[in-house]
């Protein structure tokens, strides 16, 4: 995606935010279109966000998750897609554990495909809503110092953020324990840190990633408490950042581990704004893919 395409999506999303505060949250633009959310992994915010975005635009939604579907019987992704497309689906929103699954899907079906998170690869709509949140608080992304802290290795949110932000001209810093930084991370257009106190110095934005507790048993870090001490975002650490720093988190949060409740509920956090912006961004994507306007490449 080019910087211009990102700009178009963010501008469109920004103009849709007003709809979310109307008494009648409905516009007829996608009436009669069918949107299928196909989720092979658990999700609250992404899935509901896409559903609500589609419904506000008057589209019909169908949700298929692994549990309760024939995926349990061993049905392949390809057959699942073809079956649903034969029912008239105009657009698929796909979250899958395999990196590249949406790309594969786009070749199987003629309908549009949106990536809601594939493996460790990308979570583009999260990247977009994060950029929208930053832009509305800081007027422009160019030149900002953005820190992403946490389990970078396994994080598709980190990847989407770093690609998007560097295209828009921000300086991106990644910080995490060396066991959770991907191999050859220095080749990415980022600055890498294993010391959070150094990394957070002068940051305009701190994006805190969820530590995936299920990884604890595989030797990535000695204990949750140690992770929290060295890499947790708390009030005193935050003082090293700029005075008007933004604290973001893609959710769900482990309060007290990667982020203290004080910071999460505090004055610098824009976490719930991110969620609202997520609906607007997804509305914008659905409009651009299904409702006309300039054509954008697959997300």
């Amino acid at each position, binding site marked *: 995606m080019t910087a211009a395409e990102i700009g178009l999506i963010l*501008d469109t999303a*920004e*103009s*849709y935010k007003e709809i979310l505060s*109307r008494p*009648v949250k409905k516009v*007829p*633009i996608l009436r009669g279109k069918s949107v299928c959310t196909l989720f092979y992994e658990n999700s609250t915010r992404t899935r509901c966000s896409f559903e609500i975005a589609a419904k506000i635009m008057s589209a019909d939604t169908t949700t298929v998750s692994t549990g309760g579907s024939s995926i349990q019987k061993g049905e392949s992704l390809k057959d699942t897609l073809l079956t649903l497309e034969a029912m008239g689906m105009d657009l698929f929103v796909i979250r899958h554990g395999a990196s590249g699954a949406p790309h594969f899907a786009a070749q199987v079906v003629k309908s549009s495909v949106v990536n809601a998170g594939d493996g460790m690869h990308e979570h583009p709509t999260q990247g977009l809503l994060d950029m929208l949140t930053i832009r509305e608080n800081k007027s422009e992304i160019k030149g900002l110092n953005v820190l992403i802290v946490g389990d970078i290795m396994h994080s598709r949110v980190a990847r989407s953020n770093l690609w998007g932000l560097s295209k828009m001209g921000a300086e991106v810093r990644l910080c995490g324990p060396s066991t959770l930084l991907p191999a050859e991370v220095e080749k990415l257009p980022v600055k890498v840190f294993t010391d959070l106190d150094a990394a957070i110095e002068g940051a305009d934005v701190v994006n805190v990633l969820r530590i995936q507790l299920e990884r604890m048993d595989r030797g990535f870090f000695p204990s949750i408490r140690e992770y929290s001490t060295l890499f947790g975002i708390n009030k005193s650490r935050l003082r090293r950042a700029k005075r008007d720093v933004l604290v973001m988190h893609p959710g769900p949060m482990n309060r007290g581990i990667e982020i203290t409740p004080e910071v999460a509920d505090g004055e610098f956090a824009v976490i719930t704004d991110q969620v609202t912006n997520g609906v607007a961004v997804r509305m914008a994507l659905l409009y651009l893919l299904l*409702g*006309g306007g300039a054509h954008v490449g697959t997300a």
Partner: protein
Amino acid sequence: MQTSATKVMDDNEIRRALTRIAHEIIERNKGAQNLVVIGVQSRGVPMAERLARLISEIEGVEIQMGSLNVALYRDDYATRSARTISASEIPFDVTDKTVILVDEVLFTGRTTRAALDAIMDLGRPAVIQLAVLIDRGHREVPIRADYVGRNLPTSKKESVDVHWVETKGEDAVMIAKAAEGRGQRAEGS
């Protein structure tokens, strides 16, 4: 783009037409109580601003003004390019008000139909009246304007563009033969 364009209204003619429309609005509604002005984005907005100001000056009351984005209510979205993207800004309730809906050109009527749907989603006005600078004919839905600056018979192959000094540096109404390939692309309401 367009070949040579002819100016059919200059800034003075536009000014006189808007002044007359403002007086007509006040006359028909017996005053300016409960009157609000809403311009259809993007080119109806400068006209709405001027009308609101004119009515204000004549009657001596503050007239509220808003701008309406109808992109999500259109039926012809697939054939129009994504124009200026901006949110609707209507900082007042439309319920029980007399809404003067303003657009610069009335053509097929589809934009006006979309604007009516958009306004109904915001509340329940007492009355909606339509004010346009140019009515160029060729209606495709049963819509008519209450106030018209000038009737301009055109062929469907022509395009009518209203320039406002705020965006194009001068006030003017221009007619041009549409270039090859544009077909009957609607240029107004």
